[in-house]
């Protein structure tokens, strides 16, 4: 019974391939309510697509965490600072 039900659901819902496109798209923009519903329902019943979704989202979260930490340390080096200040002054006098 469950098998038949799943088969039926698979008919109605988008395929894994389509879902992986929607998963990525949903990370950047909001989907139409219909697409969103289809995506959510598919993810509910499909372990593989759920993993795929969780993993690429976690990749982004971790990446951003690391980048934020590095960006905080991103300051103009003293050498570049002096060089730029000097060139700026030279051109300013002209």
């Amino acid at each position: 019974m469950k098998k038949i039900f799943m088969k039926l659901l698979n008919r109605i819902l988008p395929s894994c391939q389509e879902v992986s496109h929607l998963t990525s798209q949903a990370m950047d923009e909001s989907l139409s309510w219909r697409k969103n519903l289809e995506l959510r329902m598919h993810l509910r019943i499909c372990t593989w697509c759920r993993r795929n979704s969780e993993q690429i989202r976690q990749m982004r979260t971790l990446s951003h965490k690391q980048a934020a930490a590095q960006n905080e340390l991103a300051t103009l080096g003293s050498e570049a600072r002096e060089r730029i200040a000097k060139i700026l002054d030279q051109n300013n006098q002209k």
Partner: protein
Amino acid sequence: MDIHSSKQSQLSNPHDWVDKHGDALYGYAFRYLSDRSVSEDLVQETLLAALKGQASFSGSSSERTWLIGILKNKIVDHYRKTGKEVKLTNPEQVSSSFGDTDYISTGSDAGSWLPHRKPKAWAVDSNDPVEQQQFWAYLHNCLENIDTKLAKVYTLRDIQEIEYQEVCNVLAVTPTNLRVMLYRARKLLRRCLETNWIGSERTF
């Protein structure tokens, strides 16, 4: 309209610009470029352009905002130049390196995961600094092994979290194009991490 004119900002002495805005400009550039010397060069170009273009400062925005605006144009120019190089050396690589080989292509199960391509279970403990470092190291390796354009797209959007539309502007690609490229980049990188990291060191 005295109130208006008193609110108009005026430019400070260019001599002080590096001290006042150097770090902010550099930080901004670095988010887009992930490269120290290129970012420094663009800060220099920006300030020199600003020096020559002082007359174009309308006073309706702050000095910082005005400088960032100039820097943005420099970043776009930079990507335009380097983007061309990428296109010339491997025009078709983006599309050819990609065939959707993860899914069953025909029959009633078309579009389902192929058995051996199903994503394996893995999750990184976000609070474990060692796992975070490992993730980062592997991700960097993976980024070097995919198409440079895809790596750029991933870096801007998922690592630096730059707005979708901004990424389109900087790389001069359409939103649809970017959507496809991000899909490919995320897919390739997830697969790369799964194969190289999870497959080798980690056991679940």
